[in-house]
């Protein structure tokens, strides 16, 4: 019995002492979304931006993982980040909207960067962006436009689009892609050669890979589709596999996906890293602008095609620079929804995908 007591006492002492060991603090914090930090998507893109910025400026940083996907759990992770000494917290994705809505008032001295979302209360009745919060949104339609434009310039005429689900961001990618394809076709006067309509426009209904998706893509490729733009997260892997089997190409999304498959012609990138770094830089400089949403498009390096890693054959960096400039300076205003798209193309004879298909309202 005595032995046991001594043992317990020793344990308590050791633990007690060690518990006093100093816990490090981290100034820049990120909360991960439902996927892991290496999700080859939002988490990873954001995290890489943070690493680059923090290393360059020698600031401590860390990411925190919530216990589950729920508003409460996200808010608890924010609590933890603040306890861990965070002065600015980056949250990737619209799932954080309600949690940031609560946190911005709870921690008025902490800054928040919310990517791809705008803070609102859980019941969607009150929208509020406090002065310490910077929501960053992307012009996905511009990224999609660049991808479509480049594909047609690179010689592709029969195209397809697959989305994960018809959520607004994905719909915008699609609308922009259609606009880009036909804009380039009009410039090259090859409108009549373009085959891109309802037959090759589809939402998978899921962001995860599946053999069914692969089979669908295979059937398109078999019917002479030359390239598919897949704005479908992980489901893009199914399209890559189908492209590899068919000896065809595809276009990636969100981040540069060139290293995932040789079939990736290019990727319609959101410059997550750039956007995050711009936000962090403003915070570091004491010029953090909160209160309103910031839109990142071509004008502020928020979207891009990764020209260095793209597998273009005829589309040149100069052509890219020219169209990018047109977008950046507003010469070309890319449509963000279907109605604007119709106005933009201004040619009723074109055989473009229908509104129902693009907005995902057919079934």
């Amino acid at each position: 019995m005595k032995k046991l007591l001594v043992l317990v006492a020793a344990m308590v002492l050791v633990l007690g002492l060690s518990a006093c060991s100093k816990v490090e603090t981290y100034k820049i914090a990120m909360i991960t979304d439902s996927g892991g930090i290496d999700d080859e998507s939002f988490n990873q893109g954001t995290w890489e931006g943070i690493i680059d910025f923090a290393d360059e400026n020698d600031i401590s940083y860390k990411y925190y993982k919530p216990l589950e996907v729920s508003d409460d759990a996200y808010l608890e992770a924010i609590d933890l980040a603040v306890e861990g000494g965070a002065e600015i917290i980056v949250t990737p994705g619209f799932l954080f909207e309600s949690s940031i809505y609560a946190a911005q008032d709870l921690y008025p001295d902490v800054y928040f960067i919310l990517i791809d979302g705008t803070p609102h209360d859980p019941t969607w009745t009150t929208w509020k962006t406090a002065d310490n919060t910077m929501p960053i949104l992307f012009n996905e339609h511009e990224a999609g436009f660049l991808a479509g434009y480049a594909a047609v310039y690179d010689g592709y005429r029969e195209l397809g689009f697959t989305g994960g689900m018809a959520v607004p961001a994905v719909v915008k990618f699609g609308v922009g892609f259609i606009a880009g394809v036909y804009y380039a076709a009009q410039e090259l006067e090859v409108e009549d050669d373009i085959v891109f309509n309802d037959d090759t426009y589809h939402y998978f209904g899921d962001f995860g890979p599946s053999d069914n998706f692969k089979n669908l893509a295979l059937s398109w490729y078999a019917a002479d589709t030359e390239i598919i733009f897949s704005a479908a997260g992980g489901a893009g892997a199914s399209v890559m596999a189908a492209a590899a089997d068919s000896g065809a190409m595809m276009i990636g999304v969100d981040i540069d996906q060139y290293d995932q498959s040789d079939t990736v012609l290019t990727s319609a990138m959101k410059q997550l890293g750039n956007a995050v770094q711009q936000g962090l830089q403003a915070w570091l400089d004491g010029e953090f602008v909160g209160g309103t949403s910031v839109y990142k498009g071509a004008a502020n390096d928020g979207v891009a095609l990764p020209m260095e890693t793209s597998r273009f054959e005829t589309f040149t960096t100069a052509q890219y620079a020219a169209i990018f400039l047109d977008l950046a300076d507003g010469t070309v205003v890319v449509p963000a929804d279907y109605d604007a798209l119709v106005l933009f193309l201004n040619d009723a004879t074109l055989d473009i995908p229908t509104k129902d298909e693009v907005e995902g309202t057919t079934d």
Partner: protein
Amino acid sequence: MWEKVKNYLVANALNLNIGFFLFLLVFIIPQFFANNDSILLVIRGLIVATGGGYIFYKLLLFRKNNPNFKPSESKLLVDVAGSIIAILTGLLFGLILMLIVNPGQAFGGFFVILQGGFRNIKSFGDMIYFSVPIILTGLSVAFAFRTGLFNIGATGQLTMGAYAAVYIGVKWGVIGEFSPFLHWLVAILGAIVAGALWGAIPGLLKAYRNVNEVVSSIMLNYVAMYLNTMLIVKYIYNRDFARALAPKSTAVTPLMNLHYLLPNSSVSGGIVVAIVVVIILHIILNKTTFGYELKAVGFNRDASKYAGMNSKRNIVYAMVISGAVAGLAGGLMYLVDGKFLQPLNVLIPEGFTGIAISLLGLSSPFGVLLAGLFYGSLKQGGFYLQLYSFTPEIIDIIIAVIIYASALGLFLQKFVIRAMKKREMLIDQKPEEAVEGSDA
């Protein structure tokens, strides 16, 4: 009749009084002092003191009534000691892993894990919140196990239960306008029925076609997973966010005043439901002819046939109940504000964790309750471990190692018996006054 009730009340006066007192302390009194931290603190102290004192009193009473009690001869004590040793083994594994990963912060981090849900009021509430589905899936697996069935399908039953609950929560708002509590109750009942039906399938296959329940229930997990995705998209889909619609606020699990005692945490009345299920299953297993049959079938199917028990019917019933409990877990898991069913083709892991918890809880309802809370505590410990320089992925590994080493460490039991026995032999060699005294 009245006489019986009166006798019962008199005979159990102490238990009932303590129970009533605790009920007041936990569910009623705190709401009147919601903003008074010091009084809330006193209330919490009272709860701990009352509960602790009661247990201590019972132990003393037991000692007095059983002076010759030898721990090694009590199966319960040996089993419990085995579980504790197993947990310590798991923790040791965790510590070693932490020392390997980051020796500098290992001890500090380890202390955080030990603290777990007892770090502060908030983490205590969160511990309870996270343990509820685990307790229920643990119960589901344990109950089937007592009947000799290995229900690996808890995940699928949970998924179906979750879908049913959310569907009712989203679509049947009419009930909510009539009575909020009723809406929640109907949603929960829907979850129970859906889980029960899903559990009945492997039960029927096992009973009447002798299909191994492990195989059929594990395959049904996938059916449930895809069915869930399909049904969400078809009926309760929020297209803008690629997830299910939020249940109406009337269907969300009521807080039952627990948030006064455990403010800022995610705690809800789910724990009350879980404890009620623990008690019900305990009574079914240990006090009823039904439980007598179920356990007989589980222990020795041939003997149960010899005794004329209908083992086929029992297998089906056991799987139905097991599925119902797992379905309930799903309902409680998703009838939460700010949490959404997702059409992700991923198996919900709580069902599998339930297997480990059932093992650690020795397949007894109260054991599973404690094991589930232990799991919740570990989860909190792991969450706060992020304050140290451990990446979340490593923490996940550490927590998983602790849980599984704990569950698997049960084989250490025989060493426990040996140690207990040795100690008793030492005691036995002393003059046997106590023994003589008790015989007189």
